[in-house]
């Protein structure tokens, strides 16, 4: 099982390095979102800082959803997923591996950029660590919910918008508690705990649902 | 009757609410009935055509 996990993670990371930088698209979108938000707000508002946690969380949420579009559909369309299953390998391990490698290749760069985005938006430097912690705690929930939607729409071409449509309502909870945790300003706030709870809950629910959905697409 | 229909300054809100509700529910009822009739008709035509 561990060897299968290794196989899928290394394969995906290798593919990411050879994909011509498609792993960076989410990060670029992230910065672009922040920039356009600053334009919309005007220079005075954009430097005030109080909107920084909200905007960074929003940008992370959308950037992660958009980067999830191709998570399962490529493997499903080119038949490698079918090979994986016919080789009697576990679909569940495949989903976990996919999520893990996506986290490293696509989500981690966004996370690394987020403190800079927060500072650009005038956030207090002392509030940046708590923002990072909230993104680390709540990030899994966002990616897992998006992955679930990505698996459901895996057999559709250009399902990008549909993914956001399905995951969007469910993203309300991590967004609420994520921004709430930053505003609370301490690590052990109620919001942070609830955020962690939602991540753990998604960790249980999302792989199960993604596996079911992929199984249906393979039938 | 006019004074019965008058709910003071907020009349317009009340009547819009009831009006929109009636329009939406009515539209749903009418489309549902029409769809049923059309579906029945189409089925009858196809069944008639395919009679041996």
């Amino acid at each position, binding site marked *: 099982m561990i060897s299968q996990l290794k196989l899928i993670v290394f394969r995906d990371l290798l593919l990411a390095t050879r994909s011509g930088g498609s792993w960076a698209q989410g990060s670029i979108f992230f910065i672009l979102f922040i920039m356009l938000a600053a334009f919309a707000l005007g220079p005075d508002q954009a430097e005030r800082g109080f909107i920084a946690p909200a905007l960074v969380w929003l940008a992370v949420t959308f950037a992660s959803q958009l980067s999830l579009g191709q998570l399962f559909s490529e493997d499903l369309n080119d038949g490698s997923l079918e090979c994986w299953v016919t080789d009697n390998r576990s679909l569940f391990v495949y989903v976990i591996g996919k999520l893990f490698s996506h986290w490293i290749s696509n989500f981690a760069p966004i996370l690394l950029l987020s403190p800079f985005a927060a500072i650009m938006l005038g956030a207090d430097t002392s509030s940046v660590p708590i923002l990072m912690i909230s993104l680390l705690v709540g990030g899994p929930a966002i990616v897992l919910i998006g992955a679930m939607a990505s698996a459901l729409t895996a057999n559709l071409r250009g399902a990008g918008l549909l993914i956001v*449509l399905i995951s969007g*309502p469910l993203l309300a909870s991590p967004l609420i508690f994520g921004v*709430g945790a930053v505003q609370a300003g301490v690590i052990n706030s109620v919001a942070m705990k609830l955020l962690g709870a939602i991540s753990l809950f998604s960790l249980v629910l999302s792989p199960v*649902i993604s596996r079911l*959905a992929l199984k249906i697409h393979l039938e | 009757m006019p004074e019965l229909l008058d709910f*003071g300054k907020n009349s317009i809100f009340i009547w819009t609410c009831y009006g929109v509700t009636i329009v939406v529910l009515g539209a749903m009822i009418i489309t549902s009935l029409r769809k049923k009739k059309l579906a029945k008709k189409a089925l009858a035509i196809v069944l008639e055509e395919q009679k041996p």
Partner: protein
Amino acid sequence: MLSYFANPVRFKTLSKWVAPILGIGAAVLIIPSWIMALFIVPADYQQGDTFRIMYVHVPAVFAASGAYAFLAIASFFSFVWRHPLADTAARVAAPIGAAFTFLGLFTGALWGKPMWGAYWVWDARLTSTLVMLFLFLGYMAIRAAIRDENISARIGAIAAMAGAINLPIVKYSVEWWSSLHQSASINLSGSEIDNSMSTTLFVGIIGYFCLFGWLVINNMLSELDTRRTRALVIRSSDQRPSTASKQSTGNPDA
């Protein structure tokens, strides 16, 4: 194959009884409740006549929540037992539920203007109703996007169930979120509810549920007919041209 067709037939005979009961029930409950609400129930001493909006708002929101529960349960049946009827029920319930949700939001907004001085406040109840509208729309979008009926049914069922599992969490988070604002919200339990008020409201809610049931059954019946028509047309077009010409020559005789 036989059981597949047997069940819709049984459903059809049953619906011949149930549909009229629900339809008449809806009419004799909803219309009197509105007449009561508009002309007979006394004005609330705090909110005045604006209170009368409650009688179209609350039943719509209740029916919308009921519709989502129905969608989730039907999806569960469709997913676990692969029951085509359950899938049809889920499929036709979604747009009806979305319409009820829209009505709940619209009347809520118009109630908010005289009450709070704004059409929209990010009150917990309004906001979670908005989330529910998007769950309905997402379900409808995914059903429309997947062409293959079988896959569409199963994927849609999973999406609906995932939404249903998450809905309480979303609702709780929205409540937590709006409690931060301490915005003025109407407190129904705080104001004195007259006996005739609660009766009228209760009658209206039951009436809306009857209407929902009637619409679902009616739309299911037309969906079944359409599906059967499609199956017959596909079957006849699959036949050899020779049989088709034989049929056309055979027809004038009949």
